[in-house]
């Protein structure tokens, strides 16, 4: 039996996907954050799940809660690829309400409430992931690091610009990689040694020795002052008392930090999309070494018609129908239609959006099925947009699927 097989067999993988995603409202008003459309033909959770698949992990529990139906539907449509008769699975686990009569109070409580699952599996290590990050990561390389360090817990860490780092947990490590201090979302994040503009942030990717995880979540469950959160409670409790290591998420060959984004806010959602564009994108969906799996649909190919069609720097999914239009720096999900004379710029159009002839859309996220009437404009008049829609700090207009736009 190979070493890799042995390591995988003794690993349980849990993806935490139950949060409300309030900062992504209104996109999350009727669905789970991990189930939100991303990059024209993916859902956010597809990145984490593709990482699992590419790492050889084929036994996955997804802890769901808020808007779980949207996630279940996506898992069924896209990830029903595992063979239970070979011991492979992907299971969605909402709060069972068997041992305790409550929702998941936090990430740590979601593990506590599923201790019977860990008792059933009896893994040696537990990999804990989030369903709302965009990155490519070989989890087995991290597992090797964790085992080599004989760590109780390993946290994946990546440098982030200090001014953005206050949204994350900040790690302070010694020269061996051991975490000697941890600050959850500090107002003024401390810099990395020798790198004053960057802080080392936790990616919310953890590997625990199973027994340590069980002890820690039990202790946390008994702590009446705890918010039952890995970042706020579990990691700070462990640092200094247990062997906590930071796994540097960087390119093995160049040593450069690798791409990782938390899709926590609407502007981050928009900005991460821009990272997919360009001839050499920061995050390349076309990298065949580490493919990202999305929903495969039986939809006809995209059709472009007319003589003066202008499309640049955009990702256009199958089933789109474009007439004489101008589309730049945009994302068109399957089945989007754009009528003659329309202009679409820096826009993220979800499935089956229809842009009427002569309409103009700029810096907008438009949810599935929205019909934008002919000659309608979105993204050109902030005040007018703000009367109808959410407009983010960064000036991105969010058009939810429950609106009906009037012509004129």
């Amino acid at each position, binding site marked *: 039996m190979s070493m890799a097989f042995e390591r995988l067999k003794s690993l349980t993988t849990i993806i935490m996907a139950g949060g409300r995603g309030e900062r992504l409202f209104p996109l999350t008003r009727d669905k789970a954050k991990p189930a939100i459309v991303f990059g024209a033909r993916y859902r956010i959770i597809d990145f984490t799940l593709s990482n699992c698949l590419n790492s050889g992990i084929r036994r996955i529990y997804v802890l769901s809660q808020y808007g779980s139906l949207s996630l279940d539907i996506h898992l069924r449509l896209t990830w029903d690829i595992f063979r239970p008769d070979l011991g492979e699975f992907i299971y969605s686990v909402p709060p069972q309400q068997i*041992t305790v009569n409550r929702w998941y109070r936090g990430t740590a409580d979601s593990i506590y409430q599923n201790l019977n699952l860990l*008792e059933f599996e009896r893994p040696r290590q537990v990999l804990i992931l989030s369903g709302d990050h965009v990155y490519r990561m070989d989890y087995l390389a991290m597992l090797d690091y964790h085992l080599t360090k004989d760590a109780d817990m390993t946290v994946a860490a990546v440098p982030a610009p200090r001014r953005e780092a206050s949204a994350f947990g900040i790690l302070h490590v010694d020269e061996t990689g051991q975490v000697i201090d941890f600050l959850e979302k500090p107002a003024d994040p401390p810099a990395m040694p020798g790198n004053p503009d960057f802080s080392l942030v936790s990616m919310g990717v953890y590997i625990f020795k199973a027994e340590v995880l069980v002890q820690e979540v039990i202790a946390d469950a008994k702590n009446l002052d705890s918010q039952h959160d890995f970042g706020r409670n579990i990691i700070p409790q462990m640092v200094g008392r247990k062997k906590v290591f930071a796994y540097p998420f960087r390119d093995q060959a160049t040593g450069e930090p690798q791409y990782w984004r938390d899709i926590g806010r609407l502007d981050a959602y928009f900005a991460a999309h821009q990272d997919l564009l360009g001839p050499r994108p920061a995050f390349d969906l076309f990298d065949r070494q580490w493919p990202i799996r999305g929903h495969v649909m039986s939809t006809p190919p995209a059709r472009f018609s007319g003589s003066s069609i202008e499309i640049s720097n955009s990702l256009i999914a199958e089933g789109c129908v474009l007439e004489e239009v101008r589309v730049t720096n945009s994302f068109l999900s399957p089945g989007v239609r754009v009528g003659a004379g329309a202009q679409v710029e820096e826009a993220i159009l979800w499935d089956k959006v229809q842009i009427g002839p002569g309409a103009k859309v700029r810096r907008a996220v438009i949810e599935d099925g929205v019909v934008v009437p002919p000659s309608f404009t979105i993204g050109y008049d902030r005040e007018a947009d703000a009367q109808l829609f959410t407009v983010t700090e960064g000036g991105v207009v969010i058009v939810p699927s429950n609106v009906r736009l009037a012509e004129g």
Partner: protein
Amino acid sequence: MKRILVVDDDDAIRMLIEMELIDEGYQILTASNAQDALKMVESEDLDLVILDIRMPGMDGLEALPRMLGLKEGLKVILNTAYSQYQESFMSWAADAYVIKSADLTELKAKVKELLA
């Protein structure tokens, strides 16, 4: 006076523990199965539960997280004739694990320690 719930399906053991703990100055309530015990955890003001594991119907390891869910911060001692349940993650949520014996010295010491 500290109030302790003793849960055991064996009448003799329940009585033995009850008598000895009364002598130690505690107020004792008893239940002969996990379902009754859960009702008492919900309705009574308790400081500690002494919980057997192997019982007909719901066993102690099933009852334990339910008790903790009903009353956060409740202290529980698992008291069983078997050592193998110590391996189970489900037993780790208890504050102590005591192997049953006719001599209650260890059990009484744990009770004292937890209620100190």
